[in-house]
């Protein structure tokens, strides 16, 4: 790595973008993004569909040329040194990158050879990854016969076969059912624990970004907010109280007097409790719980934060 003198910060960052932007004619897909991600960090880029997450990822992966700003990945410039950038990263695309006609093992072999890995190394990592991802017995099956969850797992195995320092995951669990989403997340956690690689994730499932060290919200190509999800969630409160009831208005008003303003979503009202001690909630339940048909206390999550913030409420 050739870093100019005095740019120690630049080379320490796994990913650094400044003023990164992309226009397609009239359409501004990404608008002046500044991001800095440290090595080993698990960073989530969140936002609704069409907000510019994928375009950002593809610019960082050298597949799209930025029309404004600059970015370095693993210390290499994405425009001037695309091959070096691609050698350092793994990318799992939103849609499959596999050849359905080839078998599981043949797909990994193809990907490994494309990354210039010796056959011996490919064979060894193939074994390890298929075991880790629970695909050993599918080794010689054509990809076309795999379920969606298995195909996604194989796609991720494909993305990490060359042991990249930085892994880009573009909506890795999109279109999967809950058990498969959980499985995919276990794999990613295993990989992170084993390799310590930097992970840049895009998703619009907020609950999945909860494990991120840091998340950033992106809307219409602009970065809205960024921070550590745990800190955000902690700022929201220690517990969330969800209630339902025949007279929800009256119940909500009574709770609002004790807990502050809440959120209403259909037949459910949400309130935040800043006290770690559930005793206060238990006393509240003894007092007015009889008016509720359902009374649930749970930990808050990133979804609550997102709803809270988008409702215009202060995290306080």
């Amino acid at each position: 790595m050739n870093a100019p003198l005095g740019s120690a910060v630049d080379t320490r960052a796994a990913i650094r973008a400044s003023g990164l932007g992309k226009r397609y004619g009239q359409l501004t897909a990404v608008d002046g993004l500044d991001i800095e991600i440290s090595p080993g960090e698990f960073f989530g880029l969140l936002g609704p569909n069409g907000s510019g997450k994928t375009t950002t990822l593809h610019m960082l992966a050298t597949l799209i040329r930025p029309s404004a700003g600059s970015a370095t990945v693993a210390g290499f410039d994405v425009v001037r040194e695309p091959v070096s950038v691609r050698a350092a990263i793994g990318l799992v695309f939103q849609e499959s990158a596999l050849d359905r006609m080839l078998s599981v093992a043949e797909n990994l072999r193809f990907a490994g050879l494309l990354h210039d890995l010796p056959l011996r190394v490919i064979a060894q990592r193939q074994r390890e990854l298929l075991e880790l991802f629970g695909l050993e017995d599918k080794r010689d099956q054509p990809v076309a016969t795999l379920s969606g969850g298995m195909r996604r797992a194989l796609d991720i195995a494909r993305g990490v076969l060359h042991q990249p320092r930085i892994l880009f995951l573009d909506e890795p669990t999109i279109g999967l059912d809950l058990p498969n989403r959980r499985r995919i997340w276990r794999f990613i956690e295993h990989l992170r624990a084993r390799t310590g690689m930097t992970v840049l994730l895009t998703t619009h499932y907020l609950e999945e970004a909860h494990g991120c060290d840091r998340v950033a919200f992106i809307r219409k190509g602009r970065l809205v907010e960024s921070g550590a999800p745990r800190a955000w969630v902690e700022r929201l409160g220690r517990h969330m109280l969800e209630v339902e009831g025949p007279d929800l208005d009256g119940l909500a008003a009574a709770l609002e007097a004790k807990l502050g303003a809440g959120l209403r979503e259909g037949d459910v009202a949400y309130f935040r409790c800043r006290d770690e001690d559930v005793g206060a909630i238990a006393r509240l339940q003894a007092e007015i719980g009889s008016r509720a048909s359902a009374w649930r206390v749970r930990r808050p999550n990133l979804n609550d934060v997102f709803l809270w913030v988008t409702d215009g409420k202060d995290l306080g």
Partner: protein
Amino acid sequence: MRLRPRFRPVYAVLERELLRMFRQRTRLVAAMVRPLIWLLVIGGGFSALLGVEYQSFLVPGVLGMTMLFGAMLAALTTVYDKESGVMRMLVIAPMPHAWIVIAKVASAAAAAMLQALLLLALLAVLGYAGSGTRWGLLAAALAATSLACAAIGMLTAAFSRSLDNFAGIMNFVIFPVFFLSGSLYPVRDLPPALGWIATANPYTYGVDLLKHALLPHAASADFAVGLDFAVLALATAAAVAVASWRFSRESAYEPMIHVLAGRAK
């Protein structure tokens, strides 16, 4: 940027091409049957009708046809790769994108040569090839012709966005290239306008080389061997250069993103 040639990626693309070729049996069978139908039905028919040795004149033409179809169809799988997503594996690999073009052209040419060798064996068994063949020249002719066909196929693929164009490509690229060459008639006997087109068609020179190699005594070739090789080499280099330029300009990938984005909405 490290530009040292990488052979494993090229081998990867080649291995996949051959695996696919042998798995798609119908494609392989068609590549053998198509030229034999031409040779036996059309060649046999015209020989009987005209009383000339048309069938043996047609042997280089049908051998060339196998390479033309084999190489072009293999190169055109690049379009399928763009649509199916396999191109994602190729564009994210740590090599210059021009290298994808080179790997694809080399693989398509290898697949086409293999098909040509299979057909040649069939032709020899049937007694249409073998005697008087200049083998060294034939090997060089097979290599040069399949490379040129693969390069032209890759050039077509680089500018095609979807498989919907496939029928169009067959009708407006592959068939004209075949019919407007010296495959079916000697170029010197064609009417002037068709003769000029055939002279401008690089594939004509591939067929001409095959005539030199397979029918050295029949004097059915139109051009000199040196000219044939020069034209084929030039056509290959030009097509590879333009296709590489097209691929390196991110356009190989970016239209796909728009297609995907459009589909998502």
